[in-house]
């Protein structure tokens, strides 16, 4: 139907020439034909999810409560974040286009269901939508989002929210309490084809109450120290957009972006499949001038070009087609391809920055599948850990920029693991372990064999082509301990499928984490997720003791208890030797053209590695852009800028 509307609006603009009349009548005849056939089809599929949702609320009255303002507890203390400092730059300028890149075209614009967890979700959801409350990324305090005030229930499991009546979706519809009910209904519904989310939401989000259109409360299963993240992290879903929600959810909502409460939308005409996507700033965004949101998300447009190869991105960056090169951290780029004495840097066109952040690190590690023959033997796993020379890789290949990761949960400011250290490279200890497992003789290549003539050889599967060098060094070093690795670099989708289905022997990869307060162990170590496809228990760990600890951990109510249990869990993970930590870096780097400006101090303390643009703190200085582009032609230079921001560097970094 959209084409038809488009056509008529076009006609309205021009005069009706005879030629046009002919064309119009032809098209009209065609459209009538089409419309009549469409009408039949649409009549069959047009639905209204409203009544179904209402019926669902009634049927689940233990979760969906309707109350009156009089039912609100009397002694609530309302917080509104008035004492929380802002973190954006007051001198930021609005406008301009931020030219950036994405490695792959997204497979969908949904953020729920299959294929929705790709890296593009960052632009749709993670860095876009506004939740009830938001976390101040320097202090860890909370400030208003869609809620203008919030209060905590006395049970430690409930939060109350006063919704901001100013909050609107990008299509102009106001956000109301009903939208939170609807969101919970969708997250629990089978339409989204996402049983994991269904389960978690159904089990943990135990209740939601509407007092009036602008007051709600939400309950969590347990009392938690980070309740603000959990319940304050709830976001509404627009019922008017999901009116036709049904079994065809995946197809129907595949390429339309949900109206958002956030600053950017994707217009249908800005979606150029396989090539690029443009984000446009919502006109008159409701939060534009609010505290904590002003001077942020300053670019009017964000142009995301699909560039599949990092080296090509780098070339595009050097040409000035890409404003910011976020993958500059590896020594190859930082020291060799864009050294400090590079003309672009020396002439001050491109600025280089090192920023020490405090965030959980991506867990680069070997994930050993303990369900595989030989690898089910703990001695062999420990031997592999001792035979893996990540120390050399960190020191020589990454030139000491990387340090050894000690546990899979490094980087949580409030949950340290003193005393747990990754096993260092040691041929003797590895040989000792392999000997315990019966591998004592070396063959003509120097690889260990057991009494049955079996060689000590395993395959490492990885989805990352860029880790080829790392793995070849690992392989060569492991041979010293009589261990042979076969390197299997697969296409990303294929590799993740293989690893998800637990067909790997050893996987080399990293899991990304956001900035939660404490690590999550259930996903990766709970026994019910072991030996099953599509779960994150990549080591296939089955350990009843661990299960007990995780159960207790998930219900822990204070940070002290969480710390105590996390330490026990990490110790068990260490003892199990199925997770071999590789490396981490305490900082990230960025290279950007001089027209990209940053707040004083560059970025925020809790910023995710290599995402300096998250949170929209940067802005584009159009004048500086013109000046720089002219200077490139005329040869004019500016003072070079190579800066290190270590205000958030911690003692152990």
């Amino acid at each position, binding site marked *: 139907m959209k084409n038809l509307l488009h056509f008529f609006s076009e006609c309205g603009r021009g005069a009706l020439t005879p030629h046009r009349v002919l064309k119009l009548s032809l098209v009209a005849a065609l459209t009538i034909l089409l419309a009549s056939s469409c009408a039949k089809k649409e009549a069959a599929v047009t639905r209204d999810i409203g009544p179904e949702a209402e019926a669902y609320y009634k049927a689940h009255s233990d979760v969906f409560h309707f109350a009156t303002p009089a039912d609100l507890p009397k002694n609530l203390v309302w917080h509104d974040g008035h004492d929380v400092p802002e973190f954006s730059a007051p001198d930021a300028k609005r406008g301009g286009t931020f030219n950036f890149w994405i490695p792959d075209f997204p497979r969908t614009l949904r953020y729920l269901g299959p294929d929705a967890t790709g890296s593009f979700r960052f632009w749709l959801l993670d860095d876009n939508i506004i939740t009830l409350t938001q976390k101040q990324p320097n202090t860890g305090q909370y400030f208003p989002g869609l809620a203008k005030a919030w209060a905590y229930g006395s049970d430690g499991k409930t939060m109350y929210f006063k919704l901001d009546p100013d909050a609107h979706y990008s299509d102009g519809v106001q956000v109301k309490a009903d939208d939170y009910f609807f969101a919970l209904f969708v997250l629990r519904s089978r339409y989204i084809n996402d049983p994991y989310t269904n389960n978690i939401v159904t089990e943990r989000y135990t209740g939601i109450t509407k007092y009036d259109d602008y007051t709600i409360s939400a309950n969590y299963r347990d009392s938690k120290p980070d309740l603000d993240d959990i319940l304050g992290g709830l976001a509404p879903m627009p019922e008017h957009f999901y009116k036709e929600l049904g079994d065809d959810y995946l197809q129907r909502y595949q390429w339309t972006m949900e109206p958002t409460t956030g600053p950017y939308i994707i217009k249908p005409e800005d979606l150029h499949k396989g090539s690029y996507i443009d984000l446009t700033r919502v006109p008159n965004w409701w939060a534009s001038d609010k505290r904590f949101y002003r001077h942020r998300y300053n670019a009017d447009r964000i142009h995301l070009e699909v560039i599949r190869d990092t080296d090509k991105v780098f070339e595009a960056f050097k040409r000035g087609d890409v404003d910011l090169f976020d993958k500059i951290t590896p020594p190859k780029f930082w*020291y060799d391809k864009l050294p400090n004495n590079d003309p672009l840097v020396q002439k001050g066109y491109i600025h280089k920055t090192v920023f020490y952040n405090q965030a959980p690190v991506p867990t680069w590690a070997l994930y050993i599948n303990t369900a595989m023959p030989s690898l089910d033997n703990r001695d062999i796993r420990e031997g592999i850990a001792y035979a893996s020379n990540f120390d050399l890789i960190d020191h*020589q290949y990454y030139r000491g920029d990387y340090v050894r990761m000690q546990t899979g949960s490094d980087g949580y400011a409030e949950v340290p693991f003193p005393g747990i250290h990754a096993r260092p490279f040691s041929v003797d200890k590895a040989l000792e372990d392999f000997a315990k497992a019966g591998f004592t003789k070396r*063959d003509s290549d*120097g690889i260990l064999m057991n009494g049955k003539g079996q060689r000590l050889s395993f395959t490492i599967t990885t989805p990352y082509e860029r880790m080829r060098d790392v793995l070849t060094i690992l392989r060569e070093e492991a041979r010293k301990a009589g261990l042979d690795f076969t*390197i299997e670099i697969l296409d990303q989708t294929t590799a993740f499928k293989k690893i998800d289905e637990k067909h790997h022997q050893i996987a080399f990869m990293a899991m990304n984490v956001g900035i939660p307060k404490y690590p999550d162990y259930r996903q990766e170590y709970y026994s019910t997720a072991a030996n099953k496809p599509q779960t994150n228990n990549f080591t296939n760990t089955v350990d009843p003791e661990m299960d007990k600890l995780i159960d207790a951990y998930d219900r822990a109510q204070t940070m002290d208890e969480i710390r105590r249990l996390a330490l026990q869990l990490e110790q068990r993970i260490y003892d199990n030797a199925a997770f071999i930590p590789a490396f981490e870096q305490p900082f990230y780097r960025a290279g950007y053209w001089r027209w990209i400006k940053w707040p004083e101090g560059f970025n925020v303390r809790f910023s995710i590695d290599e995402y300096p643009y998250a949170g929209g703190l940067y802005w584009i200085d159009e004048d500086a852009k013109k000046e720089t582009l002219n200077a490139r032609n005329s040869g004019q230079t500016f003072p070079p800028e190579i800066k290190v921001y270590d205000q958030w560097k911690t003692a152990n970094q």
Partner: protein
Amino acid sequence: MFRLDPITRRKLQRFRSIKRGYGSFLVLCGLLLMSAFAELLVGSRALIVKYHGHYYFPTYTAFHPGTDFGEGYSYETNYRKLKELFGTEAHGDWVLLPPVPYNPYENSFEEGIYPPTPPSFSQRHFLGTDTTGRDVLARLFYGFRIAMIFSLLFLVLVYVAGIAMGCAMGYYGGAFDLIMQRAIEIWSNIPFLYIVIIIASILTPNLWLLLGIVVLFSWTDMTYYMRTSTYKEKARDYVAAARVLGAGSGRIIFRHILPNVLSLTVTFMPFTISGAITLLTALDFLGFGLPPPTPSWGELLEQGTSNLNAPWIVSSAFFALVIILSLVTFIGEAIREAFDPKKFSIYQ
């Protein structure tokens, strides 16, 4: 199986008289011979070690842990370090290393120096090292061996399949020819590069698998030529005479027709080889070839092009490729000239 007829022999003589082509042929044969004994020229294992009055020849024998030579480690002896050690000790022990004392897999890291390192005669990295500190010359040399093994096997398999099917189609003709020809047309329309890429990204191919896939989609080319020339030869009097004398199909094809159409296949051979080398290099370049850390030219080119600040990587691979492909092309040209039918065909 069959004797070369006098005409073919004369063609070969003529090939020998074309200096550039024949010279290239000898050089290539020399390189092939060298690569057959690559371990003696390029490798980390010493050729001879004299230790405490005993002689050791580690190249082709069992692995010697460091402890065999009084070192404190149980992994493979580092013969370069051993040589330095024996040099300073002067107990009459000595080590003879290959001219390039590195194997194509080992990463040599020097404290404070980060790979890739430029060519250095003192380190005996004659063409420098790559991004993980592996010797470029060693990788080139072993990469050459693998490329040649690949392309020679490719040649044999493609020709056996192509000639057999082409001759059969030409000789039997009729419905068999008609059906097979259609089947081949359909088969050769499958976009083979995509198939290789898809298979390589799902499985990690080894030499045999890769060879299998490539041959599976390449044998058809040869059938076209063989089919037409067999058709031509089949109609000749000598074939009819053989048939009258009671020769069977197999004998006619292999003893009579094949020697006469063979010159055609010979002229194609060098180009098939250069095609196979290019193909393997291209696949490796794209990351769909042999799995790492197999030494390969494509992988070196890929490394080189993404590290243009280390020009020795890309230029080594580039010149190696240019030299080998030129040699093969010179041979090809000479063969084509020697086998030119305008000079030698005799019509009855």
